[in-house]
């Protein structure tokens, strides 16, 4: 560690990181556009300029993102000279940046907007018209580029070069005609395009799926974990008006995903806006599945769950749910198992593991057995009664083929149950974004889930339903083993 002085305070700085990192670590809020902690610094936007004094030399204004930390350097981020230089840089950036904030999706989380607001220069001094460029340039299926808003920070270019290692973007043309473009205007490829919208410090690259969907300050953000693969990327779930899950965004987690996440995970947010839900429970009567209270449904389940019960869980169960499930299994004398579908084929070198079981490691450590969908169905077919629990368990056991099994009486705990589904009793449970708990990812890192949105009224937590079922079984004489 190197000792430097930032704004009159002696601090320890990591010599491997640029000066701007030390500034941010120590509460000096230096603005940045081209610098991103996950990408190599280039110093193209010049907005992070600070005043640095070394030894007896004169104070100089330098860009903090390209300056290495040197023992004894004295940094003043708010020096009049540095401040004035930053202000001039901002004025140049705003020269061509359109006054689009009311329309722009980035407004509210835009670094340029925040700093322009903080500086408070409301009017430009230039009489020249702004650049007129393409405001709706499609770059593939995920991203749309607004060339006018681009400040040419080249973060997106560096992202494709350094993180995905498949260079696809470049700054083309020279001088004031520079724009961002893909090579030969080909659409962007790959499973990490969504990150481009995140790294863009302004609203130039935005997600097509999120375009004009919501104003970001209306989104309630809750920390969570992505469930699309066993990597378990740390994410923020953003919910509009307590109802619609609008976005999944990666959350910085150095042990798992750094700043990134794959598009499969990012756009899995749409799955959580499904309208068909089982509220609160159902049981099979003469008219097919009939809505019933949870209490009634559990009572009926307790009647037929005895003997050699096949217990199949979902890999989406949290540790807490799995513990309840395991207790119930031991009471029924069954071995806990979870359905483990085949790899998704999305495996890559960066994040996606291709394994669609987010809590595989956690369940295996709790003594669960991993069964393929076919093996799960075979076990269900062989038993007189079956217990299926966890989000998407019916879907992962392959609904149609599961429904073809005749014989065993089945109690299901899933987010929704269709008329043709294999279940005599179905109890509704909260979705991934509606429950709190923990998943253990493939490397043993514990990812946290928090409640981003309340479950539909009447739907109770899976742990609670399973515990209540266990209590019913105990009282009806199924001894705990």
């Amino acid at each position, binding site marked *: 560690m190197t000792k430097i002085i930032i704004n009159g305070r002696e601090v320890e700085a990591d010599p491997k990181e640029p000066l701007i990192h030390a500034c941010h670590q120590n509460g000096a809020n230096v603005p940045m556009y081209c610098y991103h902690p996950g990408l190599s610094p280039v110093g193209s936007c010049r907005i992070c300029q600070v005043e640095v004094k070394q030894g007896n030399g004169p104070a100089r204004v330098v860009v903090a993102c390209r300056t290495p930390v040197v023992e004894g350097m004295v940094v003043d981020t708010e020096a009049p000279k540095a401040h004035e230089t930053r202000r001039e840089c901002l004025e140049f950036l705003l020269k061509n940046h359109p006054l689009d*904030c*009311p*329309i722009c999706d980035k407004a509210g989380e835009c670094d340029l907007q925040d700093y322009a607001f903080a500086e408070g220069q409301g009017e430009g*001094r230039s009489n020249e018209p702004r650049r007129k460029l393409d405001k709706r340039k499609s770059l593939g299926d995920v991203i749309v580029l607004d060339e006018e808003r681009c400040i040419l920070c080249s973060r997106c270019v560096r992202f494709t070069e350094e993180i995905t290692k498949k260079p696809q973007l470049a700054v083309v043309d020279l001088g004031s005609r520079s724009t961002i473009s893909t090579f030969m205007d080909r659409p962007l490829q790959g499973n990490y395009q969504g990150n481009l919208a995140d790294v863009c410090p302004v609203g130039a690259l935005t997600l097509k799926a999120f375009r*004009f969907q919501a104003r970001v300050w*209306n989104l309630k953000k809750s920390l969570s974990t992505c469930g699309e693969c066993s990597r378990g990327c740390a994410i923020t779930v953003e919910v509009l*008006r307590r109802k619609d899950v609008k976005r999944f965004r990666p959350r910085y987690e150095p042990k798992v995903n750094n700043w990134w996440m794959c598009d499969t995970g990012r756009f899995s947010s749409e799955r959580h806006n499904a309208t068909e839900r089982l509220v609160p429970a159902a049981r099979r009567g003469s008219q097919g599945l009939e809505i019933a209270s949870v209490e009634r449904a559990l009572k009926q389940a307790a009647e037929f769950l005895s003997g050699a019960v096949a217990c199949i869980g979902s890999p989406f169960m949290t540790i807490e749910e799995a513990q309840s499930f395991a207790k119930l299994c031991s009471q029924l004398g069954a071995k806990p198992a979870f359905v483990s579908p085949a790899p998704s084929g999305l495996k890559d070198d960066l994040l996606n593991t291709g394994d669609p079981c987010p809590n595989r490691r956690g369940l295996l450590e709790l003594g669960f057995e991993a069964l393929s969908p076919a093996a799960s169905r075979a076990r269900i077919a062989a038993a007189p009664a079956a217990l299926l629990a966890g989000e998407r368990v019916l879907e992962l056991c392959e609904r149609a083929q599961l429904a073809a099994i005749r014989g065993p009486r089945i109690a299901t705990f899933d987010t929704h149950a269709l008329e043709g589904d294999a279940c005599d009793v179905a109890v509704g449970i909260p979705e991934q974004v509606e429950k709190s708990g923990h998943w253990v990812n493939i490397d043993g890192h514990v990812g946290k889930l928090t409640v981003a949105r309340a479950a539909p009224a009447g739907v109770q937590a899976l742990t609670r339903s399973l515990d209540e079922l266990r209590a019913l079984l105990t009282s009806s004489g199924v001894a705990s083993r």
Partner: protein
Amino acid sequence: MVIVRRKDLSLLEKLYLPEIARGLSITFRKLFEKKITRQYPEEPLPTNEVTRGQPRLVVKDDGHIACVSCGMCEIACPAYAITIDGGETDRAIEREPVRFDIDMLRCILCGFCEEACPKDAIYMSNELELADYSRAALVYDMEKLKRPKAALQKRIDYVYRLNNRWRKSSSTR
């Protein structure tokens, strides 16, 4: 305790009838004077550009709504009366509301939405009346809120005049 002494009446007052005649003379005189009551609602209240009535959305002269669904009024609204969903258009201004609801039962007519709007799209009209048979009917949607710009022009001019009074001359020129 305060003892209030009644006024001693004079003989003329004690006689009663002259006073009745005096009172009725006032009544009959007023019958023929100019009336100061208003036959509301047949005769509506007078309004001018200062009247801060219900908020209405401006439809520009080209027929398109001026609102870009930026959400400024939604966030400025202290009564949470406004709900906006945005959508994409093919025009040069890429964004327009697909849903713009004002719950007129929640609206407190404060005019913050008018102040917050960066696009001159929402103005306090001179419409004051608010009555209906159900609560749902008083959640006004976009079609109910749209008004041609000409209908709101007086208010728009007034707000501009009001703002210009406080506007400082530019510091950079």
